[in-house]
């Protein structure tokens, strides 16, 4: 007998006793803050890494030096730079004693007089490599700028040598941009910012991972608390253990959904303008289709129920968090493995390996969802995926309820796996 009014009573307690805590609101607000910080801070800091850089150009070819200078100047005209990065170039002709000159330049770099030295050898037009001497060789933004400028300058110089008329140089050295176009069933073709959709795939999958793990853990801790505070027998005198377990899992899950709802509202009102300013939003609006959001919630719900029933059983079987730790690690591994496999899937979402991995019920909430974000899988796979998850969920509920029924009234001794297996067998 399964009485819904009893389940509801437990659910309400679980829900309210969590949502009413300060910890809930702090974590709810902290997570998006941390996410925004992770997403925005690096590029924010990078974009602030402007300033004036003095780079010496050591080359015998004065014309080439001038060309590099022009290229750098051209590059700082773009709107994205907004004058934040100002590169000054100082041309130096090679001296007779090249060793000594190089030593001198090194000491000027060390004295911070120069940011770096670009060494363009005489054979640069024939493919001899260019050196960049600096104390900081991981200044990606500066080096990228210099790299591009030298590349184009050398290209122009080569074309000039081949007697290409001056007025055709701009046309011939124009850069080519590669634009990824996704082919889909519904839309045919969709052009989106690949970078932003990748970040969003990652963020959403990460959200499922983190929330399933955290809320599963809450369920386990709740069950352990009921055991250690000895409230559990007071309650199962009027409720069946299964009713108690169901109420607890649904109540805690509802807290998770509430958190999602708050995040969604926050994202729409606060984060969206931020994404726009980063140029991530054009793709995002198309990417976050209602269908995908429905599946996101579905996968969270399935993932949560699959793992929460297991976490509840672990909580019931043991007496303390320390005792439960080992099994808890095994559970979190089932969550972490798919997380580690994310890039395998992203690289080739429709490969047989990806399909099989994403259909493993405990991996599906993350991996199948991840596949959905990159390339919508065929309907039969979606049906199969949910069928497999439902079947596993039913099996898990049976196993966990059996462990739960016996475990919650066992105090004291830490049970062995064999004993736990017997509890399942005897039901």
């Amino acid at each position, binding site marked *: 007998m399964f009485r819904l009014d009893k389940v509801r009573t*437990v659910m309400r307690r679980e829900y309210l*006793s969590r949502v009413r805590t300060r910890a809930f609101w702090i974590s709810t607000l902290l997570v998006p803050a941390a996410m925004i910080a992770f997403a925005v801070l690096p590029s924010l800091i990078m974009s602030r890494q402007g300033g004036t850089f003095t780079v010496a150009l050591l080359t015998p070819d004065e014309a080439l030096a001038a060309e590099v200078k022009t290229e750098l100047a051209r590059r700082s005209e773009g709107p994205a730079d907004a004058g934040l990065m100002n590169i000054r170039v100082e041309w130096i002709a090679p001296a007779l004693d090249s060793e000594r000159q190089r030593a001198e330049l090194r000491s000027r770099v060390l004295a911070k007089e120069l940011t770096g030295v670009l060494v363009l050898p005489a054979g640069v037009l024939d493919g001899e490599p260019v050196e960049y001497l600096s104390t900081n060789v991981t200044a990606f933004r500066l080096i990228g700028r210099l790299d591009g400028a030298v590349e184009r300058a050398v290209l122009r110089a080569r074309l000039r040598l081949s007697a290409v008329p001056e007025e055709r140089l701009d046309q011939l050295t124009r850069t080519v941009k590669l634009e990824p176009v996704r082919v889909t069933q519904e839309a045919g073709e969709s052009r989106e910012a690949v970078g932003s959709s990748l970040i969003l795939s990652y963020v959403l999958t990460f959200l499922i991972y983190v929330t399933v793990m955290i809320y599963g853990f809450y369920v386990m801790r709740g069950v352990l608390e009921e055991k250690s505070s000895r409230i559990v027998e007071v309650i199962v*005198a009027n409720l069946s253990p299964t009713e108690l377990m169901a109420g607890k899992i649904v109540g805690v899950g509802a807290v998770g959904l509430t958190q999602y709802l708050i995040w969604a509202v926050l994202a729409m009102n606060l984060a969206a303008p931020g994404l726009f300013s980063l140029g991530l939003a054009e793709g995002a609006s198309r990417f976050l289709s209602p269908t995908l959001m429905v599946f996101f919630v579905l996968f969270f719900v399935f993932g949560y129920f699959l793992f929460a029933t297991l976490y509840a059983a672990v909580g019931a079987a043991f007496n303390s968090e320390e005792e439960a730790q080992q099994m808890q690690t095994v559970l979190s591994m089932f969550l972490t493995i798919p997380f580690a496999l994310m890039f395998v899937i992203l690289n080739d979402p429709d490969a047989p390996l990806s399909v099989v991995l994403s259909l493993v019920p405990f991996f599906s909430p993350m991996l199948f969802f991840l596949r959905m974000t990159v390339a919508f899988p065929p309907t039969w796979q979606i049906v199969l995926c949910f069928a497999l998850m439902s079947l596993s969920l039913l099996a898990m509920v049976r196993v966990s309820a059996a462990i739960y029924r016996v475990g919650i009234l066992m105090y004291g001794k830490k049970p062995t796996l064999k004993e736990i297996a017997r509890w399942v067998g005897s039901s």
Partner: protein
Amino acid sequence: MSQSSAHLELAHVSKRYGSLLAVDDLCLAVPRGAVYGLLGPNGAGKTTTIRMVMRITLPDAGSITLNGAFLDDRLRERIGYLPEERGLYRKMKVLDHLAFLGEVRGLPRGQARASAKAWLERLGLEEKASRAVEELSKGMQQKVQFAGAVIHAPELVILDEPFTGLDPIATRQLKDEIAAMAAKGVTVVFSTHVLPQAEELCDVLCLVNRGRAILHGSLAEVRARFAQPALRVETPASEAELRVIAGVAAVRRRERDYLVEMATGVTAPQVIRALAEHLPLLAVERHEATLEEIFLYAVENDHVSTR
């Protein structure tokens, strides 16, 4: 006891845990309005029996009835239960907690809250209503636990080892609560291994040992039936020497004296005369058995009879 007068009845109830027969063909009848003591040593099967009544574990065999009807989840809500292992949610507010327990016990939401408020007033805890449970003293928490067990005004209350961990004041208060419930006609069943408490409180008792009822009846009945007329004898003679005297049914050695049970049909003067004739006696007197002795005697004999 006939079915009609029994409030709660267990018929041939058994429960096995692996190789351990925790409850063995147990029959009990709790009369309506009685204060009923379920007595027995630790591990006798008291808690298992109570858990079966509360349907926390189900019996392997036998039937349990309340007012003659099969005890199901719905009928169970007429019973109040305070388990031996009891506690509260530490972070919950006191009033919310009691109201939650009321709902769990089957009260509608509004009524559960009203009842919880009334109980807090009665316990003198109304100003703690919005405090977290963990802020209460241990004694106050025990009061809340008790209130949580009876908040739905049950017609029968089961208390499993209710006095363990209580200080003398709390013990007195709980005894008063039990008396108050009995006065209102509520049937009270409690288990204990502390016999003086049982002697003081209960009208009817059942002694359980190794899963079976070995003594059952009102306190007076049990005394009359079980405590054979006995003599307290101080003598340097041995147990064996006492045992062969005519009219002696059994001898139990105690620290400084013997308890000599008399055979049926003989009178005390006859036995005293026979004793004095054969043995050196230092002192002899009639002995009124305490419940503790009856209990020890019955448990001991139970071992002997089944071995």
